[in-house]
């Protein structure tokens, strides 16, 4: 137990927090503009699968990363069109995307690699274990800047709080929301890519294991603000790191696995009352 607080634990925490942070920041843009993004899980899977597949064929993880971003944005576009243009219920639409990405990677991997969902292993030299971590943590101050110091951020916040006011001021509500959702797709995809070509070396079926939802919980815990969201992700990452350290000990593995999920529920129940969500969150905008 003495090595509980060690460098290894710290580095584990950072590595485990990274995919959460990337997805959560993506979710931040979307939700601050008023669009619920339950599909972070599916977006991460899309990113993870694309990154692994393209890296395998291209031999270069950076190309894989770019492809993952493109894939994430494309999938996010589906959610965007469904919820913004067709005014579908945003939670239902997001859930559909998640279901879609339980299945699509497996289908495609069956076609490309004759496997039931896993991509072939990628050699060590073609992985990017560190870059995404840096990207993730740099994005925190960058997001803060974008939100508070740029006109895009100002408009995004206005659209999320009072889309009518923004509309009256001449801001295109739907355009901002589309951009925000696409951004969330890109970031969540990077998070997923990190899982498959950074943290490990291949894609396996459903490898996100609920991280997309935990990221959403972190976002709520962090009151939709960048720095607080980062802290929340670090907390969840720490919990996961600790649970890995404790494995093989006297506590059964299943209880250790449960920790992040239980913590998420506790967070939601304990803090949801105090956190003030963007006022127009979840409500499609239409002119009277």
């Amino acid at each position: 137990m003495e090595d509980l607080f060690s460098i290894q634990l710290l580095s584990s925490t950072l590595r485990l927090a990274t995919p959460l942070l990337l997805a959560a920041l993506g979710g931040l843009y979307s939700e601050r503009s008023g669009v619920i993004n339950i599909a972070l899980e599916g977006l991460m899977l899309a990113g993870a699968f694309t990154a692994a597949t393209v890296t395998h064929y291209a031999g270069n993880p950076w190309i894989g990363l770019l492809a993952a971003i493109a894939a994430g944005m494309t999938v996010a576009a589906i959610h965007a069109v469904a919820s913004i243009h067709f005014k579908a219920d945003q939670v239902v639409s997001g859930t559909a995307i998640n279901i879609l990405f339980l299945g699509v990677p497996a289908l495609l991997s069956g076609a490309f690699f004759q496997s039931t969902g896993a991509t072939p292993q990628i050699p060590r030299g073609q992985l990017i274990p560190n870059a995404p971590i840096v990207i993730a943590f740099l994005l925190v101050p960058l997001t803060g800047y974008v939100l508070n110091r740029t006109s895009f951020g100002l408009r995004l916040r206005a659209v999320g709080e009072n889309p009518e006011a923004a509309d009256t001021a001449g801001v295109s509500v739907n355009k901002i929301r589309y951009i925000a959702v696409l951004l969330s797709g890109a970031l969540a995809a990077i998070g997923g890519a990190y899982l498959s070509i950074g943290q490990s070396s291949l894609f396996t079926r459903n490898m996100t294991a609920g991280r997309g939802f935990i990221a959403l919980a972190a976002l709520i815990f962090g009151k939709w603000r960048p720095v607080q969201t980062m802290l929340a992700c670090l907390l969840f990452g720490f919990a996961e790191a600790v649970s890995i350290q404790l494995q093989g000990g006297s506590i059964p593995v299943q209880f250790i696995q449960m920790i992040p999920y239980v913590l998420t529920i506790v967070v939601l129940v304990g803090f949801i009352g105090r956190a003030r969500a963007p006022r127009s969150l979840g409500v499609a905008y239409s002119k009277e």
Partner: protein
Amino acid sequence: MDKRIMLELRNVTKRFARVLANDAINITIAPGTIHAIVGENGAGKSTAMRIAYGFYTQDTGEVLVDGSPRSIRNPADAIALGIGMVHQHFMLVDTMTVSENIVLGAEPGSIMALDMASARERIRELSASFGLAIDPDARIEELSVGQQQRVELLKALYRKARLLILDEPTAVLTPQETEGLFAILRTMREQGKTVVIITHKLGEVLSISDEVTVMRDGRVIGTMETAKTSAAELARLMVGRDVLLSVDKTDAKAGAAVLAIRNLVVQRADGSHSVDGVNLEVRAGEIVGIAGVEGNGQTELMEALAGLTPASGAVTLNGQDIVSADARRRRELGIAHIPEDRHRRGLLLDFDLSENSILGVHHRKPAVGVGPFLDGKAIRKRARTIVADFDVRPDDVDLPARALSGGNQQKLVIGREFDLQPKLLLVAQPTRGVDIGAIEFIHRRLVSLRDSGCAILLVSSELEEVTALADRLVVIREGKIVGEADPRTASAAEIGLMMTGGQSAGASLSAAERSA
């Protein structure tokens, strides 16, 4: 004065589904004036100005700015032409600051960096020139209503508006704030701005405007110099007919007190009181009417009495303490409630009329048959009776409530509540959004319910309705009952005074037409 025309609507027509909101109207606004557009609710004034601001596009006709026809397809176009609008419901983002709200959509600086410093400078300049004192870094949610309105004005001025349209600007202001606003408007006029003010308050029109256009039922009735007209004439033009809303009723034969309220307090989320110590009594066989400007606690009072909001104080029904009884219990004890927002509170729009007719009594006979099962036949029979009795059209109880017109929906709600044979009826805004024929029907039924011994508490923002129906009239302001009046003899001016706290600037139509 410059004879050029600042804004002109020429032969403009606009139709929404079943309603012809603007019918070939002609409006001319001269520059450097304060121009009032008056009319009753639904006359088409807001629609006309929203067309000028680009919210709507006219079906036929032209909009001319500075003498040239323009195509204004959205607010951005209007803003570019120097037209600004301050809406009745403020378009402000509560969590952002004053400066952020003002620059939204017209942000200074580059794409990468907002230049808030220069924005603040400019805001301070504008504040000083027009007397609009405001702290640029305050958050909207910290400001009073009057201050928020100043932010809205600054928004328009920041975008170099030459013409400002204000839609019912004094609806939410106290008398002092109204005077403050008028001072600002006069300053603007001195500085060469043009102001259009949409209102139905004739006292204000006479005190601030240079010219006035009267609209009625979607048409422009006339335009004249304010100095050359009178409240009486304006009222007559606005209404076009002998308005005195009379309801045929005999005097009330009031019995014992049914509802007794002592020191009722309803708290808002922030701890302040929306209902601030109300004392009131309603006796059997009488209608007590509560008059007041909307937003002074009437809504909260009714919701508390219906058991939908927690409240403190003493509330008794025929002597029985009910202050902690929930909505279901209150209904069981004989309190019926016609809510002010029938779409939100009163109806399940996607359910059919039968299912709506049992809302509130769905858990007992006759709705319930054996055990927990609903008795479909009995429900439909009762529904058909209600529909026939209250002249709900169409009378097909399998139709969804959504398919009915506002008046028929309201009659259904009323029929349902009357069927309870209540001891006390709480009724708010009974004829809002209801057509004339249904209004008369509803009024008659309310009076006959009163005559059968029910105690009725009525809230309405239509002063004519309250004075016509009530046997006793009280006035509510800022959560308190501030006065009582005899509806048969009190003038609307007196009542208006109590409603607004002293300034006759807030006097409404009835005051004008009663002194005609």
